[in-house]
């Protein structure tokens, strides 16, 4: 079973952290948000989202809290912790540095 259709490898954790910066979200909402923000380009499969969320929990980057969603459903919302925020910044910076470097190579080799 393909793990991530459309999500570049290694970026899922960073994206999840990033979308949580604006406030707590539950699992489905995270997937939706990423899908929308990517202009319908990226689709996060549950098969990769939930292992990623478990990993975030284990690392202590997020906290899970049971809440009631707008639609009245009982959902688990993920809150970014302080260390999660730091991790997010670090990963975004790193990613941007890499992306710029890759871009430069692509441009120069044209």
């Amino acid at each position, binding site marked *: *079973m393909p793990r991530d259709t459309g999500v570049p490898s290694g970026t899922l954790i960073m994206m999840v952290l990033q979308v949580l910066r604006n406030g707590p979200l*539950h*699992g*489905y909402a995270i*997937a939706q948000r990423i899908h929308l923000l990517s202009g319908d380009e990226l*689709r996060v*499969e*549950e*098969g990769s989202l*939930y*292992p990623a*969320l*478990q*990993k975030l*929990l*284990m*690392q*202590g980057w997020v906290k*899970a809290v049971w809440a009631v969603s707008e639609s009245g*459903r*009982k*959902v*688990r919302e993920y809150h970014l912790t302080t260390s999660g925020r730091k991790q997010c910044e670090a990963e975004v910076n790193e990613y941007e540095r890499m992306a710029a470097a890759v871009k430069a190579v692509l441009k120069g080799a044209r």
Partner: protein
Amino acid sequence: MIWRRLYYLLRRSKFERELAEEMSAHQEETGGQCGFGNTLRLREEAADIWGWRWLQEWKQDATHGVRVFRRSPSFTITAVAVLALGIGLNLALFQVLNGAFVAPLKLRDPKTLVRLFQDSKFGFSSGVNYNLAQFIKKESGVFSGIVLEQYARMGWQDTLEQVDVRLVSANYFDEFGARALHGRVFHEGDNTSGAIVISEPFWRTNLGASPEAVGSKVRLNGRVVTISGITNFYGARNTAAIWAPLEQIEYLYPGSPLKTDWHARNVDAYARLKPGVSVAAAKDALRAPITELGRVRPELQDEPWIDLSSGSNHFRRSRDDKEIFVVISLLVGIAVLVFSITCANLASLMVSHLSARAPEFRMRSNLGAGRARVLRQLVTESSLLVAVGLICGWFVGYGVARVIVSRTAAPFEVMLSPDWRLAASAAGIAWLAIILVGLLPALRTTRQERRNRMQRVLIGVQVTGSCILLLVAGMATRKFQNVATADLGFQFENVAVLEVSLDRYGAAPDAAASYWASLRDSAASDPRLRGVALATTVPLGNSLNEGSYDRDAPGLKVVRMTVDAPFFDLFQIPLLSGRTFQPGDTRDNAVIISRRLAEQMYGSVNVIGRGFPKTSPGHKSTIVGVAADAKLLKITATNMAESYIPMTPDSMKTALLMARVDNNQLDALRAAANRVNPSITPSVRWMREGFESRMLAPKLMSLGSTAIGVLALALTCIGIFGLVAYTVSLRTKEIGIRMALGARGGSVLWLIVRGLTWPVGIGAIIGAVVVIIGLSKILQGEPFFVDSSDPLAIAGALTALIVAALAASLGPAARALRIDPSTALREQ
């Protein structure tokens, strides 16, 4: 993160439930449109992130393993019993060995502790002069403390025996780091007059562990002293009973010359180096003050100087235990052998066990289990087995060690402490044996013949080990029997020893000589005492020395005793030629030697008037008599001879008296001494006690090796039994066909037992060859002196082995005869 993972582990079901709820909620939102696939699998994948999957699988394996063990209890019980015995026996022997010999004393800061030796142009000695030690303590400036210790034997209460006493300086306990269990030990600056400290074992055996012991008054050497404390510290010598203050020596020995004498070197001295002072620097620093001392005290003509060596080496067990040490080392070798038998046995058990479970493994692999998964299952099961075996072995080991220590009445105090490292390594080795020898080959080969061959090899290994052990046991037992009934060449039954340290009372040689003369007269007036002799050492005692004359009598060890004329009569040692000592004989001009020494040195017993030793370049004595051989020192040894020299006035100070006493009238001897001088308390004891302690090593060896040999044989029989039973169950159908075709019982039996003749035969031959050729050198020499060609021992051991092997195999083989052909044929 590790805490979060542990928290997850503890609350796993809650976490998993939440994840399931969350994911099903997610699924509802998407309306099941996107690929959730196998929800269970997705959930497991998410949960795997926490990294506890292995634990869960291990739990499954373990549960399954326990179920398997419950289903085959005979295998489980046998395997655990074998493991427990194998591990326990090793643990026990190593504990005894460790407690008795190896474990060093726990001294405070042993690195800065040194021992002092006194050296001079007249020779080197481990004893130091008391006054010299006191001088060094005051003048040297390199030591922060000097500990003095003098060993003595003193009368205890009103009993006839004497007990071990150490006269020690007040800083002894603090410097060596010993504490009181009850009451108080000595400390520097204490008023120690009339105080003693006793050891914990002494408290138990002599005072019945009485809670009122501390503070109570007892009599030591006839003087009243108070027990101030109880300790469990064991000093340099192997037995310790009582510590008394050296400063108060005159109280226990009125007239003791210790504090005025500058010649005797009779105190053991240890020093604590000041911080930062090296041994070499301390030695240098001592030179000037000692030279200066020589100027102030012209009576120190022999120009003493002091040598130092690192202290902790001197706290090993004394040389007397060496013999037992070697015996126990052999027992350890034996234990290792037993352990290899155990491992072979386990491996063989495992092979049978796995063969029986073949259908189960086939089923598992058909259901998609990989080989690694099956292997892990088996490794888990073996680990469980070994863990249970280890726990049982731990208790078996402790119990066996206790029995060994209490049954052998070991003359050493043993502190038992099961060593967890040893236990763990034993368990580890057993585990490896199961895996490497039992599991892997069994899994790799599916062919039955190879498994059978493997098992036969394992049986052969076990038989070899058992054969070695039984042969050694047989020889040791025969040796013990021979020795116990042997004629030692002298009669010590009913001979008692009276010991008293006259030199410690400050007696001059004439005073000592007159004491002994009066005691001789006093004894002569008592009809219960028949025959009296003086010597400086007791035959079969601990302080006898052996020397050798390598040029004249190579390979012979010669005991040298200082005795008076009636000695030979008292012990009924016949003089083969010449005469006994007479007035005018001195240690420089007269010697009596034993027959064996005469024959080795001169090739003849007609040596009266010749020089001794034969080719000595220096001084020679004249041989005045030849005595019959007598085993005065080592009962079991085959390389000993004796020489005797006469008493001198000086040796009277350290003399002791031996008397033939009518049955059980030991106090007659004490009474004779009391009539001479009531203020001196001698000890009296029977000589047979010395004999009994000399018999300890051969007895220990005989009992120990027999017990272990029988155990090994039992293990091997379990192995043989298992193999035969297994063979019968495999060949049920074949046997049924044969019987249906009219085969006779004998030939069916032979069919089953035939497979065993080779492993048992070859194993026995290898074992016998190892012992008779390989071990004979060790066994015949010191200190075993075991005859490795004793035909009775060899025949006995081999018979026991073969009978046991037959008995173990016939039981299950006979079952084959009862097989009903029609049922057997219906089996698949």
